[in-house]
């Protein structure tokens, strides 16, 4: 877990001034990097599951197989 994720997972009532400072600093760094064309994630997001991707490409693959006469 990154430093930022760890901070976001904590109860903000327990934050020190330094914790807030760190969050602001990391957000600013992300902006600087973004301005340079580098995307820096500020949040850990769930990965898209392989099934979601299969749902999307499945019908396309089926069409191709059909056109090639190789349908299942």
């Amino acid at each position: 877990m990154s430093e930022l994720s760890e901070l976001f997972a904590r109860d903000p009532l327990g934050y020190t001034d330094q914790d807030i400072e760190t969050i602001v600093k990391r957000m600013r760094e992300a902006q600087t990097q973004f301005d340079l064309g580098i995307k820096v994630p500020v949040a850990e997001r769930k990965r898209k599951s392989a099934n979601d991707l299969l749902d999307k490409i499945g019908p396309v693959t089926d069409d191709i197989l059909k056109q090639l006469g190789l349908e299942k």
Partner: protein
Amino acid sequence: MTEPSPFIPETQYQIAWDSTSLGWLKECPRKYYYHMIEGWTSKHEAVDLKFGQLYHGALEIYDRYLAKGIDHDLSVKAAVEHALTHSWTDGVGPWRSAINLDPNDRKSLKCREFLIRSVVWYLDRFKNDPAKTKIMVGGLPMVELNFKFEIDYEFSYGTPYSLCGYLDRVVEFQGEPFVMDRKTTLMTLGSSYFDNYDPDNQMSLYSVAARIAFHTPVRGVIIDAMQIAVGFSRSVRHFIFKTPDQLDEWMKDLRMWLENARMYAIAKHWPMNDKSCHKFGGCVFRHVCSKSPSVRDRFLESDFVRREWNPLIPRN
């Protein structure tokens, strides 16, 4: 203590109107009826509304700190702390933490981390903003202004209609006063986004409110919109100008809308505007209205909850 009601007691006659309820009426009288009179609202959490409230709350703190003479960095920290604290519930934890949201759902972009990123990036971008918060007589900044004023039009003798709501902020930009309204969106910020606000019920009502309730004849509304995407938050400023003639025309139109509402209430029938169902991202009641009238109540009961919208109850 009894809450004030925007309606004449025991009737469907609304006499205190905000931009939300008036907007529903203008979109579709049936939508207005379901939301405003019956009090139906979606069972699902209103993510956009909550995200907007947190974002506005943080920027309000920043504006108030800055107006007190506190420097930019400390004001940003106060704004961030406010957003973090208000997006945390004891015993529950963080509101919409990114890791808990389905990335296939576009709404997952409205998460807590991107909220904080949007606040910091917006405030830093406008660190030396030429739009300065106006200060009222008495020294208070014109921030998060609650208004309610009677208009020159009566429902019946001695019962005038009134307009109510909140202005985010009133600013002075290059010597001219403007209402400033901040918005968050997942849409790309181009003309197709900003065209939605000119003409627009909310922008006109805010301009009228500044003029009447705060004696500030604004030139129009500045929209500071914030687009939230996976890798960035991007803000764009847009100006909407309103002449006094345009606002007089809007007020004249308003009377006709209020008369329409009175007529529907008398008839106890709120017609469906079936050319509106698919606009604005699709009406939440679309699937209810598409059913036979005899079964609609069942669909309302199963998919919605009753939560009254009362424009007269102050925020927090």
